[in-house]
């Protein structure tokens, strides 16, 4: 009895292994529909010979071989997932971008082709709004109207989403609207207000844009208030309202709504700045107001807006005129055009203390102390820092020690650390070393540190050292520097709001020292931090230095000096 059970068990498991391999093989093959048939035949042959050696039932292979090698099988395989959606989108965008006018046949053909893909994102329910969304991206009002006419002829009715997207279309092309469109828009808006009592971020966006076309801003503001209770509206809605208020002349409200848009996304649309400049061409104070507002929120402009600014400032009366040009900035902060230095970094003490507290609570301690440290270790660390503070430099022992690689000998590690500590003690004063407990085994480290009378703290091997460095540097004042080659990208993730991120980046760039090379004699070559501020700033002559981005430039992590600036500093 026992023998039979064993045989059954092992035979079943044996077959299961083979079958899993075959099914895995087929599953991977069926997704790749672009395979040529001759390669599949090769592989199927290999599989067959491999399996027949093990005496598996040939019926299984025969069935599955037909799946693998048959050309009909490959054609019947459907596109699924991303392939289907991209295929649908390509069809749509090719259609809309290439033509200005379309007939009913062409719409029919398009829609039949798109809906033939059963496993794509676009459905019967979706397709109306997707067509209009494509029209918004290409800015074609005529095609949008044409599509609604087509729908009426077929007898199809509009959704609430299509109505809101059509209103968005009309807003995008608001300069080329006709009177007939406006009557339609009024009826759409009425219908939406009656049927939908609550508003979503998406539908509310369309409604507000429709109301702005009809110059009914008060109602738009009311609807925004109701929306804010239940959801977070898009930053686009805020900027649209700000633009409308600007055109009426109410500046304070416009700037309020714009600032609430900046909290969500750190960007100001070009239209806002351009309308401001075009309205207040001859008013020097108002132009300065714009730039002050952008200075507070740490925004970089695009090149188009900068060209408009240049033109506007140069056409002012001679008392108030400013002349300048696009230029490049030095490593030390000197401008090519006006030959003056940019302003120094100014960190508010209040904001700095707030940053320090958030770092302690969220990063070092977090939800659970044990994620990063122990409570015993934490107490010891805090006690040593409070005793021996303030420091001038904080050194990351691990980063400095492993500059030559992790496979060097331990003498090398200790020499590197000792030479840096000596250098900074000679030139700067009171350094502070942070390392790990396995560094005690490095030869001559502890003895040399005690001879130089340098304070140090060693962490457990398990816990991370980055938050310790940052906290000790912040605790001992605004003037302390720190030495690593690490960019602290992971620590930024814990800071959530925009202002904290900007502060942290500013502090990091102005207080971090990079080590480029350490000679075997002990000489250390460093890279000084950036001492000037890289924002829109005002000079002594009440001029402006403005950093700008090229058009269609992708915003990456901006490390280092921003080279492209607009200089408006000269009076003639």
């Amino acid at each position, binding site marked *: 009895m026992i023998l039979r059970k064993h045989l059954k068990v092992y035979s079943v498991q044996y077959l299961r292994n083979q079958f899993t391999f075959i099914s895995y093989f087929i599953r991977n093959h069926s997704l790749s529909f672009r395979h040529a048939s001759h390669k599949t035949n090769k592989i199927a042959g290999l599989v067959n010979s491999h399996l027949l050696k093990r005496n598996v039932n040939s019926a299984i292979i025969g069935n599955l071989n037909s799946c693998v090698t048959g050309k009909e099988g490959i054609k019947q395989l459907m596109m699924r997932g991303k392939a289907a959606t991209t295929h649908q989108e390509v069809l749509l965008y090719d259609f809309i971008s290439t033509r200005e006018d379309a*007939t009913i046949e062409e719409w029919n053909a398009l829609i039949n082709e798109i809906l033939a893909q059963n496993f794509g994102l676009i459905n019967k329910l979706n397709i109306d709004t997707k067509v209009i969304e494509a029209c918004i991206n290409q800015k074609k009002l005529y095609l949008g109207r044409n599509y609604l006419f087509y729908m009426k002829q077929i007898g199809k009715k509009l959704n609430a989403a299509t109505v809101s997207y059509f209103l968005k279309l009309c807003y995008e092309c608001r300069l080329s609207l006709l009177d007939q469109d406006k009557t339609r828009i009024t009826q759409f808006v009425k219908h939406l207000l009656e049927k939908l009592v609550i508003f979503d971020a998406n*539908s509310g966006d369309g409604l507000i844009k429709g109301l702005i076309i009809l110059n009914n801003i008060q109602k738009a503001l009311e609807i925004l208030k109701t929306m804010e209770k239940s959801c977070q509206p898009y930053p686009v809605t805020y900027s649209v309202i700000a633009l409308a208020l600007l055109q009426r002349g109410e500046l304070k409200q416009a700037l309020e709504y714009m600032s609430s848009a900046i909290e969500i996304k750190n960007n100001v649309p070009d239209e806002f700045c351009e309308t401001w400049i075009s309205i207040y061409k001859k008013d020097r104070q108002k132009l300065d107001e714009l730039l002050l507002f952008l200075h507070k929120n740490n925004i970089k402009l695009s090149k188009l807006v900068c060209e408009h600014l240049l033109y506007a400032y140069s056409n002012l009366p001679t008392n108030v005129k400013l002349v300048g040009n696009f230029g490049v900035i030095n490593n030390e902060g000197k401008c090519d055009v006006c030959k003056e230095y940019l302003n120094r970094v100014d960190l508010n003490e209040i904001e700095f203390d707030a940053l320090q507290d958030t770092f302690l609570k969220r990063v070092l301690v977090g939800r659970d102390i044990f994620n990063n440290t122990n409570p015993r270790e934490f107490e010891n660390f805090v006690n040593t820092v409070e005793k021996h503070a303030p420091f001038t430099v904080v050194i990351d022992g691990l980063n400095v020690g492993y500059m030559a690689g992790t496979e060097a000998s331990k003498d090398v590690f200790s020499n590197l650390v000792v030479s840096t500590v000596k250098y900074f003690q000679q030139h700067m004063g009171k350094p502070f070393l942070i390392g790990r407990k396995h560094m005690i085994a490095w030869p001559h480290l502890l003895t040399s540190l005690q001879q130089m009378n340098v304070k140090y703290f060693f962490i457990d091997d398990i816990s991370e050292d980055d938050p310790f460095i940052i906290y000790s540097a912040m605790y001992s004042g605004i003037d302390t520097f720190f030495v690593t080659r690490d960019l602290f990208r992971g620590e930024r993730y814990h800071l959530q709001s925009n202002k904290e991120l900007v502060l942290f980046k500013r502090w990091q760039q102005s207080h971090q020292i990079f080590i480029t090379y350490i000679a075997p004699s002990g000489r250390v070559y460093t890279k000084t931090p950036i001492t000037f501020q890289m924002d829109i700033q005002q000079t002594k002559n009440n001029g402006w230095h403005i950093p700008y981005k090229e058009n269609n430039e992708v915003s990456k992590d901006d490390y280092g000096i921003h080279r492209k600036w607009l200089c408006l500093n000269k009076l003639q």
Partner: protein
Amino acid sequence: MNIINRSLFLKCFSIILKNVSTHSCRISTNFIKFQKNHSTKVISVVTGDITSEIKDEFDDIREPVDIEAIVGDDSEKIKTMKYIILEIDICKQSGQWLVPEKITTEQWRELLNMENSRKREHYLKYLYIKEKRKMLMKINKIKKHEMYIEAKEKRSGMEKIEKTTNSPMLYNLSNVTLFNRILDSRIFLFGHYKIALAMMFGPHIVIDCSYEELMTLTELSHCIHQISYMWSSNRLAANPFNMILCNLNIQSEFMKQLHQVIPTIQKPDCFLNFTEKHYLDLFPKEKLVYLTPHCKNELVKYNHDDVYIIGAFVDEKRDIPASLAKAKRDGLRVTKFPLDKYLYWYKGSQHLPLNQVLSIMNDLKDGASWQYALRHIPIRKQKCCVFDNDMKAKKNDRLLLTYIREQNRQDILFNSKTFRISEKYDTNKTSGEQ
């Protein structure tokens, strides 16, 4: 065709179309042929009554929702409920998010507890993917069945004998066999006996279930399915472990979902043990060892006197060393598997799923080498030894790669060959011996 005739024609056709369903926008080919010569061009914008163009209600999108059954009488919750319904309807109409068609009452309750719209978006996407997967499985099943029938008819040479004749001379898979019919439950009895021995004398393994608050709902369900795979692979092993689930609250959601997957767990016959106690109450502190991927100590040899702990924590996107934190708090030893020594890691995280960990421990306990034990880790995470680092495996070559890797793997299993790599391609540097 004149304008008058065209308008008459359109009126007649519109009457026909009103009887046809409005959702379908496919028109017969005859109409297209007829209208080829007379294509319409838009000259003016439509005016007039437009309210007839717009739909009145949303009800044809989804099934009706019982708000009272889900929420009750809370006025605030009813508001959020209506807002969520609106969001979902507009997403279906605009294609903004991926949204499923059917949502059950439990899923509605989970949606209500979420704070942001982003969390709702991720959860709805997960439900959408689940639905589509089930649809595809049904379609593939039907296709496979059809292919099987076609191949069956092609096979010639076998005379078709009816089942009613009861001839004992047919030895096929679907007919009479040599062996008696052995059910799965009989095989499992054989394994449960060994687990009963393990409960009294033998090797124990602890699974720590206290990470429920740190996991999202999808991760919880993944964790529970991994526990069911552990249970099934354990009881068919040669010398199974005694699995103990510690820190398991009976009234929590962990238990509810476990009960759905393994419904016999709360019966006295079941050999999967669970307790509300802490593992420090069951075993002394010196014996316990916690397995984490976040430490630096590597497990050199399996110790039969130690009791190993596996944390039932699935983290797919975050980097919090929660299991390490727990071990530090309790003052336990900590180890990890030496993956970098014996495998060439290509892609993916080294946080292994629970069923792979347990099967590796089972093999180590029986005295296997590390190369044999680490065969449970899938091939997609490992590098093939033949190709260089720089060469990216294209789609056409990936099948050959998988075949070669599987061949190597089976050589280890059945021929007990050692897995050796030539020095030319040994570009991966092992970790330092610290």
